[in-house]
Structure formats: C-alpha cells, structure tokens
C-alpha cells in the first residue's frame, strides 16, 4: 500500500505550485485557479490524515467538505469581482488594478 507520506509530499508539491501561480501570474483568473490548486492540496492533506490516522471520527473528511464549500463560495464571489474589474478597467491583469479608488 501507499504510505501516508506520499500523499503529504504530493499535496506539498501541488500547494507550492499554487503559491508560485498566485505570486507570479498576471491574469486575475489564473491567480484564482492557482488558489483552487492550493485549496485542493489542503483538502487532500486533510483527507489523507483522516484516512490514515483518524478513520473513526472522520474529522478531516468533514473539514474537506467545508473546504470545498468555502472554495465554491470563494470562486463565485472572486469571479464576480474579476468580471466587474474587467468591465471598469478593460483588463484582468492584477498588476494594473493597484489603485484603491479612482
């Protein structure tokens, strides 16, 4: 069987790729997709811990359910903000959306 550390290493790699995407990419939708990668890595971590270390209580699985629900709320709201930004500024580039008001 696959040891638990494999899942932890995999989710660490996915999380780091997401961090790079959030920090480096210029397109706001790409930044959001990188956030999705990070959230996915986190819930994979939770589920792996739950399945290996605490299968009776299933707490990590419940936590993954909540992570997925919050991610759905987050992506809906953030995409609305991106669409609004695009309508006001004709750009989806996060570097050009630096002013607080205009």
């Amino acid at each position: 069987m696959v040891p638990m550390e494999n899942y932890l290493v995999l989710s660490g790699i996915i999380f780091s790729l997401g961090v790079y995407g959030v920090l480096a990419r210029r397109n706001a939708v790409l930044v959001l997709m990188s956030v999705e990668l990070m959230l996915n890595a986190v819930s994979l971590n939770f589920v792996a811990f739950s399945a290996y270390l605490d299968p009776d209580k299933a707490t990590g699985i419940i936590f993954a359910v909540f992570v997925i629900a919050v991610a759905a709320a987050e992506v809906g709201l953030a995409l609305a903000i991106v669409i609004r930004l695009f309508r006001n500024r004709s750009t989806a580039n996060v570097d050009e959306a630096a002013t607080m008001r205009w």
Partner: protein
Amino acid sequence: MTTEVLWWIFAVAIVAVSAGVVFARTVIHSAIFLILSLAGVGAMYLFLTIEFIALVQFLIYGGAVTVLILLALMLTRMGIAGRPEPTTGVQAPFGALVAAGLMATLIGVAVSTAWPGDLGQNAVAVSIENIGEQLFQNFGAPFMIMAALLLVAFIGAIVIARQEDED
C-alpha cells in the same frame, strides 16, 4: 503492487498538469490543465477509499467550479488572440524562490516527522454513513452556517457582477 504503480502514475500526472496550470502560456490551456488536476486529486481520494469526497470533488470542482472559471475566462478576453504577452509579472523570480522554499520545507516536514498512530501504513475505509452521522450530529451548526455562507456569497456575487443601468 498494482495499486502502487497506478498511484505513482497518477501522482506524476497530477504534478505535471498542476505545473501546466501555472506555467501554460494560454489561459484556456491552464483551465484544461486545472480540470485534469482536479480530476486527478479526485482519483487520489479514490485511492484513499473515501468515495464521498471523490464524488463531491468530481461534481463540485470538476463540474461547477471549472464551468465558472471557463465562463469568467470567456468574459474577460484580453487583446488579440495569439499576441505574445508576458504571462508573469516582475515578481516571478521571487515567487519561484518562495514556492521552492515552501516546497522543500513541506516535503522535509512530511518525510521526517514521525506521525503518531500510523497503523500499518494502510488507509482505512471510512463509510459514507459515518461521514453523514458526523456531519449532521457533531457538525450540524457549522453545516448550517456553511449553507448561509454559500447563499450570502452568491447573492453578493450577483450584486457585484450585475450590469448597472447607467453604464
């Protein structure tokens, strides 16, 4: 043995498509890589024998979230298609540095820590009945707060994205 080989194939594929999400030059390619990556993580839940989360992953992430992202990509089309544009900002090297450091730390911690109660290196199947009982008995209040949060978030999304009359 077969499970392990399949696991490694899936793990390498997930890392490859996740790298594709952040490094692809075209946003549509990134979106397609994201769908593959989410489906791959769903397969990981199947390896962990947590079918419930795998199904939720395929339905919510593979279905709803990717459709939302593709919609936003369509609505925020910039410039002429195929025009070469830098996809990363000036902060990209620092981002790479931070991500590499974080990756080294996470892998080091995951490998070197002696996890408590690691029973025979086997994932234990958690039944859907168990998950449902936990969710509605011990976590009933957070579950209802989550429902309210989703409702508020989507009403807020509609209000923010609404076309105003004076535009």
